[in-house]
């Protein structure tokens, strides 16, 4: 009897999944694969494709295009993917200014957008949309954790800087939200800027007791190298974007001991993360960054929803996405009402493992952090 129930249940679930898998899901990935920020896009893409490969689901079809960090190009690619390629889901955008250009139009045309990186505040509050899911973080999150950490570490007068684009503004807003001390100076630099001599001179003159900077990709490399040579010894800190795996390799020993905040780290202890870190190294021969982890989680979220619902049934698919029924490499993960994550943000320290620089978790910055804008979202 027991056996029969089991068998019929199995049969049921098989038919259910057969229905769900009937339609292939076409994902359009628009990401930065050339120019200054290409390391980030490559990591998101590689993380995403690794998850797709590990799942082996033949119904997941991915088309990838390079936006070269240009908003106009990203919009063109999105239109082409929606109208010509008939994609069901768009994903991949790294930079918040590109996300702001693409996402509202795309979700307005009825496709889903799953963000593996950018989480501009404008899309987390009043501008939230039922088809927009953020699988990474709301932009402010990592910086909020660092602001809190800076206060508890006893810093009272911080100099803060970020690039002049939506994520940069979110970054400094987030930091100030949880930092109780004074701001000795606040600077917005040009996106893609490579020379920080003028900013470092101002830091030197400001009398700050700490420096918080959000400079992802090549910008962070340039800043750290120049800072190390400047003779200024004020301690620096930042979000993981300023100290990710790609940056550490190029900065060298100057980064050792620096604290930074992240929702993910390669030493988070859970089976999904272990499989991810090992699989990534085996596939690509390098350590994954947080961007890769976000790409990996995005793909797994899509795969989990594909097992539950048909993408052509938008309401069912949306509900399946919202359940977030997948094993995130970060551990606990769920969506808040604005469809942005509720997750822990850790504080990490840059260490040397053998001769490789990497990050190690030293504490939890914020537990179960949602986003500051959730109440403004009417979902």
């Amino acid at each position, binding site marked *: 009897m027991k056996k029969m129930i089991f068998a019929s249940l199995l049969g049921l679930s098989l038919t259910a999944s057969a229905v769900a898998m009937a339609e292939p899901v076409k994902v359009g990935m628009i990401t930065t694969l050339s120019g200054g920020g290409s*390391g980030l896009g490559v990591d998101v893409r590689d993380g995403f494709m690794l998850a797709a490969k590990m799942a082996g689901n033949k119904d997941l079809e991915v088309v990838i295009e390079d936006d070269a960090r240009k908003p106009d190009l990203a919009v063109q690619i999105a239109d082409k993917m929606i109208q010509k390629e008939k994609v069901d889901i768009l994903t991949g955008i790294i930079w918040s200014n590109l996300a702001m250009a693409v996402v509202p139009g795309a979700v307005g045309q009825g496709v889903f957008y799953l963000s593996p990186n950018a989480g501009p505040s404008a899309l987390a509050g009043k501008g939230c949309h039922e088809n927009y899911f953020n699988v990474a973080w709301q932009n402010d999150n990592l910086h909020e954790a660092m602001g809190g950490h800076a206060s508890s570490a006893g810093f009272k007068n911080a100099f803060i800087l970020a690039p002049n684009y939506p994520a940069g503004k979110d970054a*400094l807003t987030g930091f100030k939200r949880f930092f109780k001390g004074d701001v000795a100076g606040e600077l917005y630099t040009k996106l893609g800027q490579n020379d920080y001599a003028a900013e470092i001179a*101002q830091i030197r003159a400001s009398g700050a007791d700490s420096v918080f900077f959000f400079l992802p990709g090549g910008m962070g490399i340039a800043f750290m190298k120049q800072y190390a040579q400047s003779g200024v010894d004020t301690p620096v800190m930042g979000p993981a974007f300023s100290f990710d795996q790609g940056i550490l390799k190029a900065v060298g020993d100057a980064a050792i001991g620096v604290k930074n905040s992240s929702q993910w780290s390669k030493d988070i202890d859970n089976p999904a993360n272990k499989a991810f870190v090992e699989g990534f190294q085996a596939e690509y021969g390098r350590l994954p960054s947080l961007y890769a982890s976000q790409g990996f989680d995005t793909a797994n979220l899509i795969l989990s929803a594909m097992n539950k619902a048909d993408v052509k049934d938008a309401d069912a698919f949306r509900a399946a996405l919202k359940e977030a029924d997948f094993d995130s490499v970060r551990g606990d993960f769920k969506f808040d009402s604005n469809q942005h994550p509720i997750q822990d943000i850790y504080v990490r320290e840059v260490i040397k493992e053998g001769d490789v620089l990497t990050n190690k978790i030293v504490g939890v910055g914020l537990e179960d952090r949602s986003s500051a804008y959730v109440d403004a979202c009417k979902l």
Partner: protein
Amino acid sequence: MTLALFTEQLLNGVQFGIMLFLMAAGLTLVFGVMGLINLAHGSLYMIGAFICATVAVATGSFWLGLIASLAGAAAAGAVMEIVVIRRLYARDHLDQVLATFALILIFSEGTRWVFGSFPLYLDIPPILQGAVFLPGGVQYPLYRLAIIIAGLAIALGLYLLISRTRLGMRIRAGESDREMISALGVDIRTLYTIVFALGAALAGLAGALVGAIQSVQVGMGEPVLILAFVVIVIGGIGSVKGALIGAILVGVVDTMGRILLPQFFALFMENAQATSVGSALASMAIYILMAIILALKPQGLFAAGA
């Protein structure tokens, strides 16, 4: 703002200008002598940086890397001139822009293919590490000071080369009348290759020098290229002296604008707003400078052969 901070920022501006000069000198020579717009000049800058990083990692010596970047970029420039550029002199500027833009794509993708998308590691040589105290209590990174000195030495060298040597004489002659000098029996093809390789070597050197304090990555040359074009337009196309003055002018205006404009707006605005308005205006500062100079002197500050 204290005097020490002001001096430091002025030095930063000059150092930035010197880097632009190394890029702009080659660009302006190629434009002046051959009448060619070379968009791929930024690729030579990138090639210099990648060669320096690779050789420095392989041999452990930054200086060997620097020499290799000079030689490598010059060689790349010579090959580029012989294979592609040579066919473009007689064409109009639009064809040149199209062809050299194609070269950018080829070089970028080629470099990505060989080295990957992730930035390479290149560090400052130990002897130039750290900061020094200058008179007046200014603390300044030694490496940037070395760049300023090296750049000024190169500017002097170029001046002597162009005004005092036979090669320089031919370059100047080529600028003013290219038919005439080939009629006088000068091998203009070789001359063009030499000038192009010289410009390439300077761009490669700039890339290597900058690579040590910024990041060595694909696409690093294009933002500098745009500024280098601004410099040669301000300085007067074809004039090396104009390139030097224009570069330092652009470097100082850009650096000072980035610091002073946000502070200026902070006098009567809320801080966050002032920084964003100030930063936005600062990124326009050099283009405004260019517009003003072109309005007053349409040929640029030191127009050659005009």
